[in-house]
């Protein structure tokens, strides 16, 4: 390489960076800037297309109507919007208490012990489980057992994906609380339960809320785990024990459909999902700013 020879440059030359070294620097800088440019093109394109194509089809009917048949103009996907909200809610109802209490154990009761190390390991592994496998799992334990595709099955699949996110952010929240605060609570005779529920949890709340919103943001866009659990429904699901339409599955179905009207709706649904995620992520940022410590 050009720059390596300059290391033995004589003393009087030291103040001037040799031209070879300078060139190397310039080339690398140019490379890095082109990396950013190359990375930026598709990313900007995605955002641009989602916004323009999505806005183009955005009508009030989208929120009030049911999905149209092939080739029929108009229509919307109100069932998919409620379906996404319901499956995400079910996922959160399972994963939030589960995750937060697990973090209570790993940080408050068993910090550093064998079981909490094992749990941390499992959490990391769980976060790497492919989402489609979470779907197959929920299919195996819910759909087969109940004999029907349902929002519950979808929610359970999503909860598997949300759980590690919630455990991790809750752990971070608990870790952010100084040891002194725990000692203070113990020192005036609080039981572990009292100090956790009344001091630690409230103080860690911004972290937990951030984790919940991040997990929801992820769940809202997940498709693979819902394909064989919530499935899809042309109509409004009448209960959580029925096949349920979701935005993400609708995008998939309509994207691979040959009909222009359905493809157009896929873009609108994509816009709404992205907006949903954007709002939730911004919310997470705002919440996480309100840290107590």
């Amino acid at each position, binding site marked *: 390489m050009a*720059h390596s020879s300059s290391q033995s440059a004589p003393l009087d030359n030291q103040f001037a*960076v040799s031209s070879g*070294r300078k060139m*190397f620097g310039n080339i*690398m800088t140019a*490379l*890095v*800037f082109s990396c*950013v440019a*190359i*990375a930026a093109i*598709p*990313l900007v*394109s*995605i955002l641009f*297309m*989602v916004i323009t194509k999505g806005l183009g089809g955005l009508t009030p009917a989208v929120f009030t109507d049911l999905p149209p048949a092939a080739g029929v103009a108009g229509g919307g996907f109100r069932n998919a919007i409620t379906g996404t909200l319901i499956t995400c809610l079910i996922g959160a109802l399972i994963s939030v208490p589960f995750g937060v*209490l*697990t973090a209570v*154990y*790993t940080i408050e*009761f*068993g910090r550093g012990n064998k*079981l909490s190390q*094992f*749990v941390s390991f*499992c*959490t*990391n*592994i*769980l976060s*790497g*489980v*492919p*989402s*489609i*496998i979470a779907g*197959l*799992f929920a299919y*195996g*334990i819910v759909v087969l057992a109940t004999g029907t595709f349902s929002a519950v099955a979808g929610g359970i699949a999503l909860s598997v994906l949300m759980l590690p996110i919630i*455990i991790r952010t809750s752990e971070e929240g608990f870790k952010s609380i100084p040891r002194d605060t725990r000692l203070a609570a113990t020192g005036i005779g609080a039981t*572990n*339960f*009292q100090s*956790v529920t009344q001091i630690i949890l409230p103080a860690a709340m911004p972290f937990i809320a951030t984790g919940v919103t991040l997990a929801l943001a992820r769940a*809202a*866009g997940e*498709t*693979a785990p819902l*394909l064989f659990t919530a499935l899809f429904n042309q109509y409004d699901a009448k209960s959580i024990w029925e096949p349920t339409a979701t935005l993400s599955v609708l*995008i998939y179905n309509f*994207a*691979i459909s040959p009909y222009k009207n359905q493809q157009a709706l896929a873009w609108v649904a*994509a816009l709404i*999902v*992205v907006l949903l*995620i*954007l709002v939730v*992520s911004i919310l997470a940022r705002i919440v996480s700013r309100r840290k107590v410590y």
Partner: protein
Amino acid sequence: MTSLTTAPAETLIDSSTKFQPERQINQIFRWLTIALAVCVGLVLLWITYSLLLIALPAIRTFGLGFLTNSTWNPVEEIYGVFPQIYGTILSSFLALLFAVPLGVGVAVFLTENFLPPKILTPIAFIMELLAAIPSVVYGLWGIFVFLPAIRPILQGINRAFGWIPFFSTTPGGRHLFGASLVLAIMILPTIVAISRDTMSSLPPQLRQGSYGLGATRWETITRVLVPAGLSGIIGSVMLALGRALGETMALAMLVGNANNANISWFSPASTIASLIANQFGEASGLQKSSLFYGALILMVLTLLVNILAQMVVSRFQQVE
């Protein structure tokens, strides 16, 4: 010694031994958290077990030959996932090939103050946002925007370099190469985020020391910072690989779902995850069981990659 006052003393024992709901609650609470913590481990086992249960008939019928067999024939009930394993690994490999240099470049760009923070912060934010965009949206974009856009370019490559086996087929509407490129875009934010965290958490003495010896910025980056953060970068690559291997929707929508292992990157292919997504709806009996067998293979594959990634990343953290 004479005894001390006894009246209050008894109450300490009394209050310690008499029934108090809060003491009970505390115990129950403690056990509840232990039980849930244990359950996190059990969930992993449970997932594996429930896959195994349904996959069992296929495992019994095909054994390990399932991995090397290229037939997927529902009529004769013969199944094998060799093309899918090939497609899964090749698409992930191609995605890494593009995403790693790009991602490390962007991470360097974001940590080494090439531009003022005012510009860098929004770029970092956009990267984070992109990590949150659902894969089905990437798939949608791939179908209608990206694949049509690169098609002429790939056709040009095919005309010029068609003698190279990798480019030997004329690119149609969907192909492994295009799907891999989209996959690369999808895993880019993961690589950027972790590499960036690694680089910015390096001790400042490293940088100062290197500058102090008269190294230029780029000599510092390439010879000091990147080597020092290497295990963190490798960890990020492994995690991204884990994600790429399991990615379903974008591939199911873009890869073309052809059941063959073609040497040419420009031909349609299939991955384990895309196979499951495509076939599951109509599958039953041995076919469904075979899909679960495939899922089990995918699970083991990602598990290995992720455990390896954990080890690399945690080793970096210890060194830190």
